[in-house]
């Protein structure tokens, strides 16, 4: 039933979108629109589009177009955010800019939310996700991860007057803030199904609500909650490490091997110049000092042997 409805609205949409694509192609959107049209053409040729997996662009196609679309956070300070001059900044962004530089293409940053990251890759809306994307087995089935560039675990931050140091014996009247589509959400649902979760769809809204006292704690990547407690007065990370020790890596659409291989080679060669340490010093020392540099940075894609 849903299909014919979709067909109906799409039939009408076809007629319109031609006009729309030309009408909308002003300024910075031109590149994105052009790529959208290309991808549409490519996908149309595979008439049976039920899979919809051929939406990605290969390395050559990206180079040819002169622009790479990279999905980053725009509200996750200090990893991906927008400064007061409208420029994307942060640890992920620093790496993204280097990728653009070494590929010889312009970087078009696409603002993403946690829950959209897989979707954006699977629908070809971005070429790479560089949005603090934790590598998990479930996600590996949906997208292809490159070599890691950062260590991460989960952490829980709470107010100084009510520091949460354990999730056991939880008071059912209290809730924890999580961001929809993050590993923290998955972990808490699986391991603490009785803790009420207050879910938000963006970092900006989650932090705002946490500051406003909506919940007693906020669970997220420990990197992010530590940053939050360092940047804002009155907060303590009572649980600095929860769940398994994971890594963060760039991700591409499943099957996009040319791009994946290039990124892996890039990460390896960047290791020789200690790029990610430089990245840390440029983007994270303001928040963390140098205390976390060695534990956080993964250089050359090599994690410490356990």
């Amino acid at each position, binding site marked *: 039933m849903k*299909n014919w*409805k*979709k067909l*109906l*609205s*799409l039939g*009408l*949409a076809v007629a*319109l*979108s031609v*006009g*729309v*694509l030309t*009408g*909308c192609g*002003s300024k910075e*959107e031109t590149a*994105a*629109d052009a*790529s*959208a049209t290309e*991808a*549409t053409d490519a*996908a*149309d040729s*595979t008439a049976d*589009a*039920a*899979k*919809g997996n*051929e*939406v990605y662009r290969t390395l050559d196609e990206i180079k040819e177009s002169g622009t790479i679309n990279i999905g980053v956070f*725009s*509200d996750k*300070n200090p990893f991906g*955010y*927008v*400064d*007061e*001059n*409208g420029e994307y900044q942060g640890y992920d962004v620093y790496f993204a800019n280097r990728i653009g530089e070494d590929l010889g293409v312009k970087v078009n940053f*696409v*603002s*993403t*939310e946690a829950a*959209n990251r897989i*979707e954006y890759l699977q*629908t*070809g*809306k971005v070429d790479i996700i560089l949005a603090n994307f934790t590598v998990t087995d479930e996600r590996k089935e949906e997208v292809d991860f490159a070599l890691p560039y950062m260590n991460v675990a989960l952490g829980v931050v709470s107010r100084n007057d009510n520091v949460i140091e354990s999730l056991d014996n939880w008071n059912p009247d209290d809730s924890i803030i999580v961001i929809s589509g993050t590993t923290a959400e998955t972990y808490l649902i699986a391991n603490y199904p009785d803790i009420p979760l207050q879910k938000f*769809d*963006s*970092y*900006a*809204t989650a*932090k*705002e609500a946490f*500051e406003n006292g909506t919940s007693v704690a906020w669970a997220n990547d420990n990197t992010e909650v530590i940053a939050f407690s360092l*940047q*804002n007065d009155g907060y303590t990370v009572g649980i600095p490490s929860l769940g398994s020790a994971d890594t963060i890596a760039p991700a591409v659409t499943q099957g996009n091997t040319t791009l994946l291989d290039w990124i892996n080679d890039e990460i390896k060669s960047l290791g020789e110049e200690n790029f990610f340490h430089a990245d840390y010093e440029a983007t994270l020392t303001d928040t963390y000092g140098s205390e976390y540099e060695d534990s956080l940075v993964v250089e050359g894609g090599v994690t410490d042997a356990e």
Partner: protein
Amino acid sequence: MPDLGIDVLFKGTNMLRLLGGLWVAARISLISIVISMPLGILVGALMTMKNKIVRAICRIYLEIIRIMPQLVLLFIVYFGTTRAMGWNLSGEVASVIVFTLWGTAEMADLVRGALISIPKHQYESAEALGLTKVQTYIYIIIPQTVRRLIPLSINLITRMIKTTSLVLMIGVVEMLKVAQQIIEANRMTSPNAAFGVFLVVFLLYFLVCWPISMLAKYLEKKWR
């Protein structure tokens, strides 16, 4: 007077970016309006035709589009089309498609309403006076329809501009998202920015929509 964080907007290019975000929303609604007005008039006219099949098709289209929340339509077009059809639409294009489909449906309904609101005896009187069908439309029906229609369609424009605030949810960086980014980038220095910045967003929406509503009201009174 507590610090309400409005000063954040005067840092760097923040205010300009906020206005830029407003323009993104306004551009989506303008393009959609320009496309959906003529299409809506066409569909509306089709709906007053005697052909039952044409009327039924228009009716189904109208009901489906109007019963679904616009946010649901946005999600279906933005995420669903890529899955089902292999299309890849940017958030802005998806928004324009949804707002055009929706605007066309709303406009069609207004046109249909305006057309059937002209009493039958007007057609008959015109015929009795010896006017041809074309003359009847040009001199009698269309002027009256247009007068009823224009205030209503101007209202539709404000509704559309207001509804474009939803495109935030499919990742288009419009005014609300820019507001969030500004608040986020200044969390340390200006913890109360959420009040000031969202207040300004609220006022900016009002400043854009209010004059348009006033115009509609004025025309409605003038042409009653």
